[in-house]
């Protein structure tokens, strides 16, 4: 039965919700607006909100100063690559934990997650030295592997949760029907878990795209993704807010667009199994 909601209540909550949404979105909005200002307008006090001289010069400047497209390509390769590589390991791992659990499976899952609680700065020096001695510094393959390892616990956990929702009897039926383990995963499990796998993929691409700590520390130019591209604008020459904003806008635009088009899938994936 629907609950009765008074008009005042409805209005209060609508305004409140919009307020919160705007507060969350404001930094992004401000960055986008600033990217169209001149450097002088960008630091003007009081700040100018909409009434300033709109200009595209920052974008032109950023384009000419650093190769946006190369960084963009690196970002795509690193985020998509690390996610696909992660799925390759996580699908069999999640399958075995969901359908052939051992006594310590729960502990193993907790332990995997606990690695996410470790402060990254604590292992930066050893990682850096390892990368240097094995020649992986500033290589796409090196940073891809690191990001895969960092996100692997989350990928495995998410897939594990989705797989758990699939009734074991269906897999047993497949086994009775003569499906080998490989065919069981290919024809029955994976198609049934597609919504879950898709949202895991999307979320991890976003996480890897935005990852800044390791990408900033382990890449400099050749393998540098968009995070490094942004950071290069908070340079020793001084802060250039407008150009920094233009760079940021260009960096977040692809992922924002991806997120916008896949939001239905993302939300469905994240709330998967909450209601049956």
């Amino acid at each position, binding site marked *: 039965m629907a609950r009765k909601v008074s008009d005042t209540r409805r209005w209060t909550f609508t305004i409140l919700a919009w307020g919160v949404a705007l507060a969350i979105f404001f930094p992004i909005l401000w960055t986008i607006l600033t990217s169209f200002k001149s450097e002088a307008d960008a630091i003007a006090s009081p700040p100018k909100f909409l009434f300033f001289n709109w200009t595209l010069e920052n974008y032109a400047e950023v384009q000419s100063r650093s190769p946006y497209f190369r960084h963009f390509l690196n970002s795509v390769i690193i985020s998509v690559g690390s996610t696909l590589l992660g799925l390759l390991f996580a699908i069999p791992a999640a399958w075995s934990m969901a359908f052939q659990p051992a006594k310590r499976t729960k502990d193993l899952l907790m332990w995997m997650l606990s690695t996410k609680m470790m402060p990254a700065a604590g292992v930066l020096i050893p990682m850096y030295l390892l990368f240097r001695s094995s020649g992986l510094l500033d290589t796409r393959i090196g940073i891809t592997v690191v990001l895969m390892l960092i996100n692997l616990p989350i990928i495995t956990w998410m897939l594990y949760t989705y797989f758990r929702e699939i*009734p074991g*009897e*269906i897999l*047993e*039926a*497949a*086994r*009775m*029907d*003569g*499906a080998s383990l490989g*065919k069981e995963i290919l*024809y*029955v499990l994976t*198609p*049934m878990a597609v919504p879950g796998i898709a949202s895991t993929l999307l979320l991890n691409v976003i996480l890897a795209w935005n990852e800044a700590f390791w990408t900033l520390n382990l890449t400099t130019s050749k393998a540098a993704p968009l995070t490094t591209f942004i950071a290069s604008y908070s340079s020793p020459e001084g802060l250039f807010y407008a150009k920094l904003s233009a760079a940021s806008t260009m960096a977040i635009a692809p992922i924002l667009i991806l997120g916008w088009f896949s939001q239905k899938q993302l939300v469905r994936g994240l709330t998967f199994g909450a209601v049956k």
Partner: protein
Amino acid sequence: MGSITLKQVRKAFGEVEVIPGVDLQINDGEFVVFVGPSGCGKSTLLRLIAGLEDVTSGQILIDGQDVTHAAPAKRKLAMVFQSYALYPHMSVRKNIAFPLKMAGMDAAEQDRRVGHAAGILNLTDYLERRPGQLSGGQRQRVAIGRAIVREPSAFLFDEPLSNLDAALRVNMRVEISELHKKLATTMVYVTHDQVEAMTMADKIVVLRAGRVEQVGSPLELYRNPANRFVAGFIGSPNMNFLEGEVASRMGAHAIGVRPGHFRMSTSDGLLPGTVGVAEHLGSDTFLHVDLDGGTHVIARAEGEFPVHHGDRIWLTPQEGRIYRFNDKGLSL
């Protein structure tokens, strides 16, 4: 062919012994029902036959061949699950054809067999639908269709009707029985419902705590139960048990009388009591009677039997219809 032999089949999950050792012979073409209260190990026994669980010790033979350690698909058995276990992302046609596809059968033969099975099960109009668009009964038929197309040597059913509503359950019960007549293939059927067991089985296997209590035809079990457990489990409503003086007068620890085997009188008889609830079903009346000794029994009377709550009644067990049990619960 489809004979199944279990030799001292044992199953333990860690320390817990679920099936302490079962010997059983299922003949080709038989309809065998495993029945027992929940937790008695009947589903586990079926899963052992299917190969979905590994036996701890013992041997399983199908058509004389040792399949104890063979993979499920190698046993030539087909199984119908309680939850139907249909593949939700495939059409009915693909669901039914799946085992054939796994066997690498050519497309034309697949189509022929799917068409044949769909014909038998009245599914021809639903072949392009997804399982989600079907009713419970139709889904159950698809699950059976998926089992039929493989032309297995035996069918295994794991409580296939318990997710259906009462009316549909009766229909499907008849359909499965008819299917058995038509195919003449061995069927092993697990249920906790003794009515299903009585109406469908050629042979009933009554299980309790993983042990086979008795094996026999429905009427054999009804007429000659081996012990008190089987006597109480088979037949509806359940058999009444009386202990104490009445029993010892007949040289037994306890006697059993089925609800339909009492003579009833409102003036005299062997066992006086008071009517508690009278359930008038039209064709029958079930009387819940509190005997003067404190025992509660159920008696079946004809539909128009004129008694009501609180009336005095005398029950007399019919001669030759009394089951006698010793102190270990075994039939005398």
